[in-house]
């Protein structure tokens, strides 16, 4: 009798632990998977709570449980601008993009690269090169369609800075009464900064391997940096130095590492 009592208690304890573990996993899957189309508030169905009606304490324990959170660090390389250089060798930009999720759908973004430009016209010749960084945030607005669906449509903001040098510019100015004047400007170090609004898409080709594109609308915050002087035709990361606004496009391939926290 005593032996069967112990066996009964052990089975009951096992059942309790089993149900408790199952409940926690259920909470995790509901809170982490929007595909269930439940809000977090609705993710505890009444019958599930009813199952534990004999164990209120287990509900309290499960509420204290912090759902595990999947962090990810993604690093991607832009392939669009290097390909564009094939068509237009006077502009070149190489850049990488990395993002790290602060929350499930919000990412801290760091982008960096370098590039330059060259003008080789009859009346104007110079070269320029610069490095740049962009820092910003990005939010995904794409509801997963299935479990582990990590494709994203993103909107974001960036702040970009570039430091570089425009080489000495050789130029000619025509005289309306005949002849030309040839002159040269000294080289110029420059700093320029800008803001960006971005929109993009990321999708996972293979587990961990991503591809996607990014559209950018850029607003130069130091548009007068080259007032009256030769402005670099390509400030890598921004675009034409003589324009107060510009558009950009990137196409990325990259890899993501994930871990649970």
């Amino acid at each position, binding site marked *: 009798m005593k032996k069967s009592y112990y066996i009964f208690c052990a089975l009951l304890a096992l059942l309790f632990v089993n149900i408790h573990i199952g409940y926690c996993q259920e909470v995790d899957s509901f809170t982490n998977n929007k595909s269930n189309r439940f809000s977090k508030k609705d993710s505890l169905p009444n019958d599930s709570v009813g199952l534990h009606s004999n164990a209120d304490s287990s509900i309290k324990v499960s509420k204290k449980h912090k759902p595990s959170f999947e962090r990810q660090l993604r690093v991607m390389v832009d392939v669009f601008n290097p390909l*564009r250089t094939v068509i237009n060798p006077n502009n070149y930009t190489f850049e990488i993009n990395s993002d790290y999720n602060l929350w499930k759908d919000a990412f801290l973004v760091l982008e960096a690269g370098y590039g330059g430009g060259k003008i080789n016209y009859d009346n104007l010749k110079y070269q320029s090169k610069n490095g740049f960084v962009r820092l910003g945030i990005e939010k995904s607005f794409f509801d997963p369609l299935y479990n582990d669906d990590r494709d994203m449509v993103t909107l974001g903001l960036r702040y970009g800075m570039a430091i570089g040098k425009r080489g000495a510019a050789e130029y000619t*100015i025509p005289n*309306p*009464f*005949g002849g030309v004047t040839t002159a040269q400007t000294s080289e110029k170090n420059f700093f320029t900064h800008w803001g960006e609004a971005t929109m993009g898409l990321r999708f996972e080709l293979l587990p961990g391997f991503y591809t996607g594109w990014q559209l950018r609308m850029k607003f130069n915050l130091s548009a007068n940096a080259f007032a*009256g002087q030769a402005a670099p035709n390509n400030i890598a990361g921004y675009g034409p130095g003589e324009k107060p606004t510009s558009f950009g496009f990137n196409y990325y391939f990259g890899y993501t590492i994930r871990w649970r926290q």
Partner: protein
Amino acid sequence: MYRVVAIIIFLGLFTSCNKEVQECYTPTNVPLIVGFRVIDTMVAVDSLNRPDTTVAFRDTALYFPVFQTKVKDTIYSFIGDRASTAMAVFLNPDTNFMQYILQPNQDIAIFDTLNIRYEHKEHFISNDCGYTYFYDIKQIYGGGKRVLLDSFEVTNAEVSTSQKRNISVYFTD
């Protein structure tokens, strides 16, 4: 679906990239714009036999006006339209002074002289257009005996690509 859209956008943007071509749509020779105005004075008497004088300043149209100058032993003539109220002439960046002979009507041999002192400065237009000269008008004055010219006015001292009227010459009515 998203993959297809992404590939289409990528290809579209990539194929839209053209090799850089120099395209300049701004005049690289910046002209001085001279406006023609008249001081129209009308003297009359009113019903009480009191003098009544009206002075009007207004644009006037000239019949094929001609500006003529001499640079390095070459005579350059700038001829306006049939009814020009303003016309463009060039300044020489190699000097700070130019003298123009103004013939208000190309069919009538009446000449006035216009002397212009100015300073020039280099100005970057754009990568496609390169550099040009802007000018600052410092002084305008007549020369010799004035025939039809009454006075001069600098309305916009900076000669630039703005196409604004820089000076006005006033004719007596």
